[in-house]
């Protein structure tokens, strides 16, 4: 079995970027929604990890930290039939209209 894209220990890597960023609203929200779902027992930490491990490897490397959380959270919520991809898509479209797409 190929090594998981998340299993990074000892893989070739470059210098460490030490810049830190203040969290944007959406990141704070991602963190809070994730933790709230955990607190209610709706999702286990290991389920989220597994979803991240299963995502497309290119996507794993391309997404930022909280984007990966959101993607894996969506996977788990859909798996558990709490939400569907279609209704999330519809809601995004509705929000974009409200936010005023240029």
């Amino acid at each position, binding site marked *: 079995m190929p090594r*998981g894209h998340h299993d990074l220990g*000892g893989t070739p890597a470059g210098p460490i970027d030490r810049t830190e960023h203040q969290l944007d609203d959406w990141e704070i929200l991602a963190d809070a929604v994730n933790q709230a779902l955990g607190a209610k027992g709706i999702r286990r930490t*290991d389920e989220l990890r*597994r979803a991240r491990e299963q995502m497309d490897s290119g996507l794993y490397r391309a997404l930022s930290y909280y984007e990966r959380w959101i993607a894996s959270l969506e996977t788990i919520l859909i798996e558990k039939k709490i939400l569907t991809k279609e209704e999330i898509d519809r809601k995004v479209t509705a929000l974009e209209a409200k936010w005023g797409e240029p």
Partner: protein
Amino acid sequence: MSLAVGKYKAGDRVRVRTDDRPGHVRTPYYVRGKNGWVERVYGEFLNPESLGHGGDGLPQRPLYLVGFHQNEVWGEYRPLGRDKLFVDIFEHWLDPA
């Protein structure tokens, strides 16, 4: 955290298995097949391999703090010396060495 559980005790030499299991595992690739020792017995914990796929994580499995010499894990590790690496590993990933 019960301590008197499982096959191994602090000081036992162990080798990490090279199992190639699919699914969610928490034993990193870089220690598989490596020899180390049990540094601490942590007690029993829910199995992440079950939890990751919606299981209940039972039965709980013994978990150990396993120590390795860096010079033995990585061929090119320098300096040659006492640097060590510690990983939390479940009993079902360990064989006696």
